[in-house]
């Protein structure tokens, strides 16, 4: 594992350890009150999910056109993390919506497109798990489509009339809310890099194990 891994681990733990205090000290929002505090984990998770999906798409494109095993490992790791972060987004969002909108779920453009994107990355993982030989290339193509959905998910609140807050919320945040938000975003970005590093390492060892099994058979 890379030398910077322990440093990143300590940094991530530090950022997450202080995050609850930053969130508690952030002011309440005028119309939503306490439930708005879900935003400090929900939005950074969503942004990190977009980054993970893009990473998966780019790595998969590199693997498709160059057959580099390293790119495939990064793509596989990023897909798994996209699904993990997507799960957090799709659970924390409805918990906020229940109080803010009065319903758990609305079939509006942002929520539906996020769910579809999450299902595409689930399809990637299912293909890798049950697709048999050659499924790496097939799933890489699926990942490219999944990554292509990211701009649609992001712009959906501006393109279509939805009940979801617009992309204007983040740039217009009050400084007292912006600082804890950026803190949590930094924490999730560090967590993403950490998880990618750990997951890629696992794939490297699996490849080495496969090579050893082949050597043993010979």
């Amino acid at each position, binding site marked *: 594992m890379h030398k910077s891994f322990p440093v990143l681990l300590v940094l991530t733990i530090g950022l997450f350890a202080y995050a609850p205090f930053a969130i508690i000290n952030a*002011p309440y929002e005028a119309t939503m009150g*306490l439930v708005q505090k*879900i935003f400090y984990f929900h939005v950074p*998770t969503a942004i990190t999910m977009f980054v993970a999906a893009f990473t998966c798409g780019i790595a998969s494109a590199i693997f498709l056109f160059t057959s580099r095993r390293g790119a495939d490992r990064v793509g596989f790791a990023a897909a798994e993390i996209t699904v993990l972060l997507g799960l957090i987004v799709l659970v*924390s969002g409805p918990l906020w919506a229940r109080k803010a909108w009065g319903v758990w779920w609305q079939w509006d453009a942002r929520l539906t497109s996020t769910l579809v994107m999450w299902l595409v990355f689930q399809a990637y993982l299912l293909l890798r798990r049950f697709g048999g030989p050659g499924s790496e290339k097939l799933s890489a193509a699926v990942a490219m489509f999944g990554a292509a959905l990211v701009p649609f998910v992001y712009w959906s609140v501006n393109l279509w009339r939805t*009940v979801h*807050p617009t992309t204007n919320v983040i740039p217009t945040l009050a400084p007292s809310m912006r600082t804890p938000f950026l803190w949590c975003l930094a924490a999730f970005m560090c967590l993403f890099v950490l998880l990618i590093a750990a997951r890629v390492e696992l794939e490297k060892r699996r490849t080495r194990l496969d090579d050893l099994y082949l050597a*043993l058979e010979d």
Partner: protein
Amino acid sequence: MTSFRFVRALLIAILLVGAPVAAMAQAPQPQPPQQEGFVPVDQLPGQEALPAAPLVAAAYGVAWAAVLIYLFSIWKRLGTVERELTEVTRRLESGGRR
């Protein structure tokens, strides 16, 4: 016969009055306006705290649980692969077969 006509007239009247009322009741509720920004306040209204607290706790709980379970799964998988690597390396060094 007269009573039959009366009942029929009554039914028609109920239908004529009731149908628009029912339709109005089923009409889609106007959606809340789309939010353009968040406005901070100093004090949380009293009635806000109780119902929102379990939702906030659940959201943060799920996020932490998901991340920790995933970290645990990576750690378990790394341990399994590492054990297999040690075993296969040992077999290779001793020149054995599976």
